[in-house]
């Protein structure tokens, strides 16, 4: 099992009446709600927490890309990951990921990921999302019906840039490059492991199966609701005669809050969970799914955006959220039981632990993360022993890694004899 401590980096200062006074947390969110000076604190605290997760023994620390978004102030995950590469030692850097259709040219992603892999000593896990419709279409202006074709071309270009050893010409529809020859290239050969965040597009299942990439379902609605979607993925894995059903072929994001007791969990975390589910996910339905973004096949299969639930997001209580599985919360034993249900029920080996929730302050987040790392994770680690040997979906760091900040004493020229 691989546990990645994930931070979406929500803006923690959305006002109480945010939902009533604003139509969306995303795309056209009110500029005046952002305070750059407060952001100085917020970014540094969030990066500290990611670094703290490394010291707790999480397998990975995770970042992602969103634009113009009140619950994800991380338009460039690579900037955060670069900071983390220097200040952490062991955890994989799970960048989930770069929306490759948005980079012009996408060679930029091949280069920056190669830099991250080199700086971190081979600790990169690379993610290539298509990006949500909010990010890709409404914020970054990509034509919805062409987004997937552009994504596919970007993917081909990046993989070739990573793996070919001679300069090559790339005559794509969206990218015309005469001399592709990235410098640096990644440590991990032939390429870093790749995870693909998806939201139920059948084409994405096939793409992962064909390329031996891990399919990540980054849902906020928890493991109970995810059952049908991941079953669809595993059915496709079987139908396509994939060579194995390794649980590492799949990943899942889950909001987790641990305390000494179930009651304490509710007392400590309820308001922060409430903040996230009832404020941060307030997305205007008109931004959820630009027509043409999803393929017809996917719409016919009934997979719609998680940002526009048919009856809208009502006000959800702690009870709704914990019983419905959106949030797994409680004592270490309660959390362990439910995590085991999740892991076995969905058959997933990569868990993205959303341990920082909404406007949770750092001390509570540390408390919850530490309890999870010490009292829950060790018991879950051994759940899929028959797949322990499967290393295709995780990073392979080099053994002798540099220690940042360990410069020698400056060169000092031998002192000439003093002249009188």
């Amino acid at each position, binding site marked *: 099992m691989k546990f990645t401590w994930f931070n979406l980096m929500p803006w923690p200062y959305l006002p109480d009446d945010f939902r009533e006074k604003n139509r969306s947390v995303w795309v056209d969110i009110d500029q005046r709600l952002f305070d750059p000076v407060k952001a100085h604190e917020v970014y540094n605290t969030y990066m500290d927490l990611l670094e703290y997760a490394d010291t707790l023994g999480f397998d990975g620390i995770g970042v992602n890309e969103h634009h113009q978004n009140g619950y994800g102030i991380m338009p460039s995950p690579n900037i955060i990951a670069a900071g983390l590469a220097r200040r952490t030692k062991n955890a994989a850097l799970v960048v989930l990921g770069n929306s490759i259709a948005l980079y012009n040219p996408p060679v930029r992603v091949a280069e920056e990921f190669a830099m991250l892999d080199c700086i971190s000593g081979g600790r990169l896990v690379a993610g290539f999302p298509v990006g949500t419709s909010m990010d890709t*279409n*409404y914020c970054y*202006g990509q*034509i*919805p*019906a*062409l987004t997937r*074709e552009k994504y596919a071309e970007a993917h081909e270009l990046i993989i070739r840039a990573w793996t070919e050893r001679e300069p090559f010409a790339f005559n794509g529809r969206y990218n015309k490059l005469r001399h592709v020859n990235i410098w640096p290239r990644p440590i991990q050969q032939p390429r870093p492991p790749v995870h693909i965040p998806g939201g139920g597009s059948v084409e994405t299942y096939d793409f992962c199966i064909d390329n031996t990439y891990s399919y990540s379902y980054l849902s906020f609605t928890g493991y109970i609701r995810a059952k049908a979607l991941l079953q669809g993925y595993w059915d496709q894995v079987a139908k396509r005669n994939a060579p194995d059903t390794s649980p590492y072929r799949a990943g899942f994001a889950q909001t987790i809050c641990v305390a000494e007791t179930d009651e304490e969990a509710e007392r400590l975390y309820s308001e922060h969970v409430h903040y996230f589910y009832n404020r941060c996910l307030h997305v*205007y*339905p*008109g*931004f959820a799914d*630009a*027509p*043409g*973004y*999803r393929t*017809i096949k996917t*719409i*016919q299969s*009934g997979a*719609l955006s998680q940002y526009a639930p048919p009856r809208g997001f009502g006000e959800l209580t702690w009870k709704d959220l914990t019983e419905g599985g959106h949030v797994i919360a409680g004592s270490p034993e309660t959390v362990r039981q439910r995590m085991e249900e999740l892991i076995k029920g969905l058959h997933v080996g990569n868990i993205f632990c959303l341990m920082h929730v909404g406007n949770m302050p750092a001390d509570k987040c540390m408390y919850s993360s530490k309890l999870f790392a010490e009292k829950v994770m060790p018991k879950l680690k051994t759940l899929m022993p028959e797949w322990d040997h499967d290393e295709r979906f995780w990073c392979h760091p080099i053994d002798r890694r540099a220690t940042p900040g360990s410069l020698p004493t400056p060169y000092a020229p031998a002192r000439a004899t003093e002249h009188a």
Partner: protein
Amino acid sequence: MMQQKTIETPHGQIPYLEGGSGEPLVYLHGAGGMTAGDPILEALAATHHVYAPYLPGYGETEDRPDLRDMLDYTLHTWDVVRALGLKDPILVGHSMGGMIAAEMAAVSPNDVSRLVLIAPAGLWIDEHPTPDIFTLLPFELPKYLFHDPETGAKLMTAGLRIDDPEFLKSYLVRNARQMGMAGKLLFPIPERGLGSRLYRIRAKTVIVWGQSDRMIPPVYARGFEAGIAGSRVVEVPEAGHMVILEKPAVVAEAVASVA
């Protein structure tokens, strides 16, 4: 009555509606699509032989991922005109269809001598940004499309089973296909350089605009008028962007004036 027929083009079978008699006229529908019962078709067919092809993505067309941009759609529509065996038909287009018609006339100025643009898309004026149709929810559309939104809402939903889940699913699929295609020309800003090509148009051109158009405000008529030499604007009172639904007879009269 309009009849649905099919012709073969390099981009597959294209369904089209045909009816009426008189001078041949090609009508290009807007992003919302077209049905055989559209009053504008009937009004035009009273005096013309009307051919109204479905754009790929609309009606019972196949999806055409190989048609991606303005030039692809412009040339495709010329292919359709040729497949119909027409030479210099009166070219009429509404909204996105008007944008395509104007491009066709700009690309092949010697093949179009009469052009009618009804509230065409294709220009962008910074001081008068048009609403982002791709973010509008169905219930928000009438206020942008109609002079009288209440009556307009009824026109839009007449005969539709909007409470039936099966209908809603097919609506989502149809909307994704149609607006997905429209996005290739209109997303995120409905401007693909037409303004710099308008000078090429040689056709006698009439520009028709509803005075209450809140989708593409009437100020845009002046942009087309300034770009197309000798063109003339007909403003229609008490009509919005769907002037073709609200005042079909007035539109047909304007069309007749280019013949």
